[in-house]
């Protein structure tokens, strides 16, 4: 059975940091409000 040692097991917080960075990217880039077009 595949198993991982302490050097991998102890890094549980790394994917959380990546998820947070992705959430900021999503908020700033993906969900950026559309620019309102100026009237002629």
């Amino acid at each position, binding site marked *: *059975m*595949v*198993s*991982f*040692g*302490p050097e*991998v*097991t*102890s890094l*549980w*917080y790394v*994917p*959380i940091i990546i*998820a*947070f960075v*992705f*959430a*900021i990217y*999503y*908020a700033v880039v993906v*969900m950026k*409000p559309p620019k309102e077009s100026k009237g002629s």
Partner: protein
Amino acid sequence: MITSVIIAALVYVAFLLGVGVYAYTKAKTLSDYLIAGRTLGPWILAFTYCTSWFSAGSLVGAAALPYKFGLAMMWGITFAIIFMLLVPFIGWGGRVRVMTEKLKALTVPDFLGKRYQSIGVRQLCAIVVIVFAGIYLVSILAAMGTVFEGVAEVPYSTGVIIFAACVIAYVSLGGFKGLALANFFQGCVMLAGIVAIPIIGLSKIGGYSQLVTRLGEINPKLVEMPGIPGWPFFFGFLIMAASVATWGNPHFMVQFFTMKDKRVVRWALPIAIVFSAIMGGSSWLGGAIGRVLLTDLSRPDLVIPTLVHQYLPFVLVVLWVFAMLAASMTSAGTFLLVVGSAFSRDIFQGLLKKDASERQTLIVSRVMTLVVGVITIALAIKPPELIFVLLVAAVGLSGASFIPSFLGGLWWKRGTKMGAIFSIASGLLASIYFWKINPSLGTMLGGHFFVPSVAISTVLYIVVSLLTEPPEKEFVSSLFEEFESKKLTSKSEVS
């Protein structure tokens, strides 16, 4: 010291009751009472979502896992943040907000009933919500009794009764609007009360790397992944049952109903991730720290109360008790409201008295909150062996019942009311079978009863939907209109 803790807790509860009274005067309509009038912004949504998640059960009871099984269990928090926050917020938070407003749905059974144009779906859904909420509430109250027993040395049953009475009074007064305001305030208290545990614990041990080394010295399996319980437990329990199953939990689903618009998820998500990482990380790490510092515990779920009692200074003990009180009140409060609304809006208004006025439904909702509270107190007096197992059983049961019809209702036009009925009923029955009647088969098929149960309910949802008459084309088209016009706009922009 004990008297001071009790007096401080009573003052705290009195303040929250004041918030409940304030909200009572502001909640003018059933929509205000049940979904805060769809007015929540990102901060309040993030806090109320996360505080509903973190009960004393998931903070105190779940810390028994890293205590028993080691550091691999910390990945439970990692998976929870990905599957309980990232996926639902980005995947369907906004869509739920849009569709529930279009259908004028105020509760989860209300939404599913209207989406599938079926009173049967609505009432079946309401029954599952009531069963699910009952189990969940018992586990929350049991955890709260453990907290008082461990720290304030109040007898278990007294702690359960005092706490439950406070929650019932507070929720029946405030509704969701009061709950959301109180959850924000209580979320701040929870953060302040919980961070001291890993800070002081790690300083006693000598840092995080020392914790890893010391755990490995006790038993090398404590720092390996999957470690002592193995991959089936890791996949079936930590990933599927404790995280993915929450997609079908009414107390999370209903949170998206309350947003002021669909873009609220934009900033609510990073706020929720930070909050959850601090809350869950601190508490669960406390379990691992307890394995090094505490060697003679009678029960693993006493690890956090004992750690707090032995290592934290008095002021931080009081703050922690408040945090646990807050954690339990927010979760139990949300659940009481969910089950009260299932009885009042979906059973009473839909079945018992179809012409009930809004005022009558509000009164019934408050009365049902009281009745459910009393029943769960009676059940929680005799505590379960390991709190978190019971908690996750409820989460899995609800998840297996609702996930296919909920997500299918949001994305799949072809889903029918018979498909939804078969899916919800089979999810419930399969969960009970694999959980209680034949648990070894459930474990063999996926590590946890949720996995085979949700597979069965998903297959039945798809097969029965395809075998039955499609829903009215006009109704479904109007429901999906906004999402499809957005797709068309994007395509035309590209071309």
